[in-house]
């Protein structure tokens, strides 16, 4: 990984995700920071990213790096955590039963992913599918259910649905641009995760262990030498 990517690109990408994900455009535009529970979910996602090897934290912060380099690494980690929380927050419905279900869904899903211990490639695929599905659920399915519609029949059905569910299902219809902002935020987040300094693939690790046993270069040096080729 290049220095520019670590010091400039990754923090900017993750902070942009934080900014875009916080925007709530309505009659009055507001910026909503991630809720405490979203921060917990963000921490869980961070743990899964590290566990899978999509992020090798020792390549961002370690005693072998200079203080300045460690500061850069700390900024990347903090920005990654905040943006992970914000990405999840933007995909969770805003109120009622869908909000509760969204929170529980992400919580269980992240615990399940941690238990399954996927590798980097599997995690990236899984994240793409999960975040994409949550996006469709919130911005397509729930939006369609919540939009009152133009025809009298649809409006009547909407009123009945709202009454039957005691207002727990119907959401406030977001501004049309919100879906695009959320899509950009999620896409940028995935790009950011893809660009993170990652660990060696599992099949390559035995060679690394052998090199260490033979008194070869220390692990971080080998990791850097190997991953700089593709990263």
């Amino acid at each position, binding site marked *: 990984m290049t220095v520019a990517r670590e*010091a400039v690109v990754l*923090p*900017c990408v993750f*902070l942009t995700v934080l900014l875009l994900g916080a925007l709530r455009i309505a009659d009055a535009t507001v910026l909503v920071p991630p809720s405490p529970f979203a921060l917990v979910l963000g921490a869980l996602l961070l743990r899964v990213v590290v566990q899978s090897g999509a992020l090798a934290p020792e390549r961002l912060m370690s005693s072998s790096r200079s203080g300045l380099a460690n500061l850069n690494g700390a*900024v990347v980690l903090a920005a990654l955590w905040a943006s992970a929380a914000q990405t999840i927050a933007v995909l969770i419905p805003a109120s009622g039963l869908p909000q509760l279900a969204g929170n529980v869904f992400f919580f269980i899903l992240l615990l399940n992913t941690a238990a399954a211990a996927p590798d980097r490639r599997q995690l990236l695929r899984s994240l793409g599918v999960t975040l994409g599905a949550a996006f469709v659920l919130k911005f397509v399915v729930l939006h369609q259910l919540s939009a009152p519609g133009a025809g009298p029949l649809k409006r009547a059905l909407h009123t009945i649905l709202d009454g039957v569910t005691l207002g727990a299902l119907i959401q406030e219809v977001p501004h049309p641009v919100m879906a695009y902002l959320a899509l950009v935020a999620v896409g940028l987040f995935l790009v950011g995760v893809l660009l993170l300094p990652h660990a060696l693939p599992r099949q390559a690790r035995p060679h690394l262990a052998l090199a260490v046993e033979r008194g070869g270069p220390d692990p971080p040096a080998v990791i850097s030498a190997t991953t700089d080729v593709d990263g």
Partner: protein
Amino acid sequence: MPETTTRVLGLALSVAYAAFIGWLFVRQPQTIAQITGGLSSAIGAYKVDEQALADGLAFFRNDQFVEARMALARADPALRDARTQFYVAYSYYRQGWGRLSHDDRLYAEGLIAIDRAMTLATSGRLVVTDSDLKMHTAEELKAELEAGLRREPSDLNPMRLFEVRK
């Protein structure tokens, strides 16, 4: 570019960007003018449009309150000047004042504006020396607006008909 330079620049950029996002979370600006005004006032470079302020005060003294607020909004688009916001609040007070009853909606808007002015004033103290006004401090104006919004038995006092607008 040397590695250290890149790292220092990256760190500075990240900290500035994060501070900007934190500022947006706290201030919640609604327009681009409020963003640019807020940032320029943070470095002491924000200036009120004096001509628009003079226009606004002329309208205000002529009891053209809607026009006054338009001109004052032009003078202080970022809502960062305490004195201008004081006049905005005062315009809501004078427009909403009535001998028999007050306009609660305008008084509520006035209360928002005077709270904003008090937040912007240095150490919360705001005194406007203007001989045309009968209330010169933010506290007096705020108390008057709050009293106008309250429902009290004294509202039924017939002597109220002899009250004058401040």
